[in-house]
């Protein structure tokens, strides 16, 4: 799997290392921005269809340009900084959150031949870098000089830090089965059909069947924690609009709010992509070698990730919000024990196969 530097080498052959680096860096950014537009549109439309309405219909055919219009609206809005706010922190916060989400994209292997950075400790890097979002949230919430923001930020910190533990357990479980932290390697191991995916016990023949319940539970645990880590319903207590108006981004407007918005959708993609990589075979085709060329791999990767983004959106428009203490109860008393049991089983599986 030395091929992941293929694109870099290919471009630098014609341009030079620095320019190639910039180009390679732009690809995830472009991906993120395009994805955000699609996700926002998808969220609006799915929400509307569930709620028996049509959603945006005015901007373009079927309202397709609605996210673009929203971006332009946010761009020309006045950028307000509250009087009592801590200005440097207040201005910095949205960018730090966005940074966390963007940096995480750099290690996602979109295809066997393309990962922006072929880090061999990719999973570890993602766990580390996604914790950065907490910093941005607490900075934004505290600097806003608003009590709602402060409560929202405090809730968010306790929530995200707690949920990192079961999330890390899930990732560790898969890592112990794959004997690797390199996302590209993990993806490659799951090639050859969906029965090789780690959600179904990994690539180990028929004898792995006893592992399937544990891996499925592990996947559910990771899915729940991923919802919590991205502050999505039913765990959107930091921004629960019925209690805290808008939580930590109450005071933000204009482009800075757009960054919060973008980061939220970006984080949704990142956690979905991790889920895809560690449980659903990453870029590998679900049908063995069928449609498994590097270009198709990009399609499979994005399709799988978008499926989970859609699942998150679907859940959001179904469920009520939990309370803070129930959220903590769920994390420490349900998800953590479950993930530990599953981790033990998966570690055993890792030793056996």
């Amino acid at each position, binding site marked *: 799997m030395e091929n992941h530097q293929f694109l870099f080498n290919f471009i630098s052959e014609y341009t030079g290392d620095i320019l190639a680096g910039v180009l390679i860096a732009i690809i995830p950014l472009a991906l993120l921005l395009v994805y955000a537009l699609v996700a926002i549109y998808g969220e609006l439309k799915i929400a509307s269809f569930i*709620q028996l309405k049509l959603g945006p219909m005015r901007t373009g055919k079927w309202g397709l340009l609605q996210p673009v219009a929203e971006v332009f609206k946010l761009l020309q809005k006045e950028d307000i900084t509250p009087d009592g706010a801590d200005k440097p922190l207040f201005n910095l916060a949205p960018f730090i959150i966005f940074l966390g989400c963007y940096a995480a994209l750099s290690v996602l292997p979109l295809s066997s031949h393309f990962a922006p950075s072929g880090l061999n400790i990719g999973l570890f890097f993602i766990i580390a870098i996604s914790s950065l979002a907490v910093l941005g949230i607490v900075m934004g919430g505290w600097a806003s000089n608003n009590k709602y923001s402060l409560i929202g930020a405090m809730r968010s910190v306790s929530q995200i830090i707690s949920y990192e533990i079961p999330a890390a357990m899930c990732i560790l479980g898969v890592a112990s089965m794959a004997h690797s932290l390199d996302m590209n390697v993990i993806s490659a191991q799951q090639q050859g059909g969906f029965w090789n995916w780690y959600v179904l016990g990994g690539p180990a023949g028929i004898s792995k069947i006893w592992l399937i319940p544990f891996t499925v539970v592990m996947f559910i645990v990771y899915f729940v924690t991923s919802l919590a880590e991205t502050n999505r319903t039913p765990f959107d207590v930091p921004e629960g609009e*019925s209690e805290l108006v808008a939580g930590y981004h109450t005071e933000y407007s204009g482009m800075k709010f757009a960054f919060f918005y973008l980061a939220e959708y970006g984080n949704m993609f990142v956690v979905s992509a991790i889920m895809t990589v560690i449980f659903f075979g990453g870029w590998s085709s679900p049908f063995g070698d069928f449609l498994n060329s590097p270009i198709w791999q990009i399609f499979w990767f994005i399709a799988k990730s978008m499926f989970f983004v859609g699942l998150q959106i679907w859940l959001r428009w179904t469920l009520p919000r939990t309370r803070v203490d129930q959220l903590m109860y769920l994390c420490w008393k349900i998800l953590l024990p479950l993930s530990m049991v599953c981790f033990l089983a998966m570690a055993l599986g890792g030793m056996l196969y």
Partner: protein
Amino acid sequence: MENNLENTTNNNKINIEYSQFDSERMRLNAGPQHPSTHGVLRLEVELDGEIVTDIIPHLGYLHRCFEKHCENSNYNQIVPFVDRLDYVSAINNEFPYVMAVEKLAGIEVSEKVQILRAMCAEINRIANHLLAISAFGLDSGAFTPLLFLFREREFALGILEKLSGARLLYNYFCPGGVRYEIYSDFKKDVKVFIDSVRLAMKEMEDLLIFNDIFIKRTEKIGLLPKEVAINFACSGPVARGSGINFDIRKSAPYSSYDKFDFDIPVVEPGKEVVGVSGDCWSRNWVRVKEIEESCKILEQGITLLPDEGSVTDGIPKKLKVPAGEVYCKAENTKGELGFYLVSNGSDKPERVRARATSFVNLAILPSISKGYMFADLIMILGSIDIVLGEVDR
């Protein structure tokens, strides 16, 4: 004397213990502009971390001088003002007022009008409860139930619009009858409406009411014991959720309610479906069951409502109200709504005093929400189901 007051306030059991550490308290202004105060209610909340330690409601942001207005208007002109008290159940507001005027003026109302009035009130009650349940879901963070139930509410408003010409503030009842004749397809529409509401409520039970997250958010929250509820003069679903079997439609049947066969859903201690008697879930559950009971009344109303006869004949050309005073009450969607009407024989009333249900029910909020979390406070407020138009009048 002072001990007595303390006893009544501390009757409710607080199930979340106060924080052991006496940390710095934060005073938070929830409202007047807040997504979940159901209008312009300002709650001055003292928080210890997330736990509510004190709460002071500030009312009056929507005070429209209803009682003062009434003193300067004649009896017919008050009906539109009465509509605007509890604007989501306007017909139910008109009911006691019109009955009070009829009682004072000695107007007899025909049976057809009585049954039609009861049916209108029940359609309106369903419309109100649909909003209350869905808005309660919205308080808990579920947005979809709101729009699901609004579809059914739209049916209800459509029927009432065809009857009265207006969608929200009807001005439909008047002393002696109702303003407009019944349209031809009324019974058919009501039938379709009942079926659609029943289907929607079944769906809603799956989607929201028996959802585990929703149950966890609402059970054992905002406990209102029976004695406290009576002491605070709570009525309607708030009282029935606490196990008080009190419904004016049964205890003192007015209009044509003695002709209908229906039950009063009460969550008595020991007979709860989920949670305990007097919590938020029970209050909401009473509303859910009441929709079913209202459907029953409507079904009977379809058969009872005579086809012949006019509903506008009984309206007196000139309304003469002799001197006297009366307190007339009816079961509004939120509880007991009464009008204390004092007449001095002229065409304008001397004094109109409204016993606003939401006003009385809201008074329990400070004493039942202490010790719960801030998120629970929102749920408790939602479960009381207030309309600020009625609180502030």
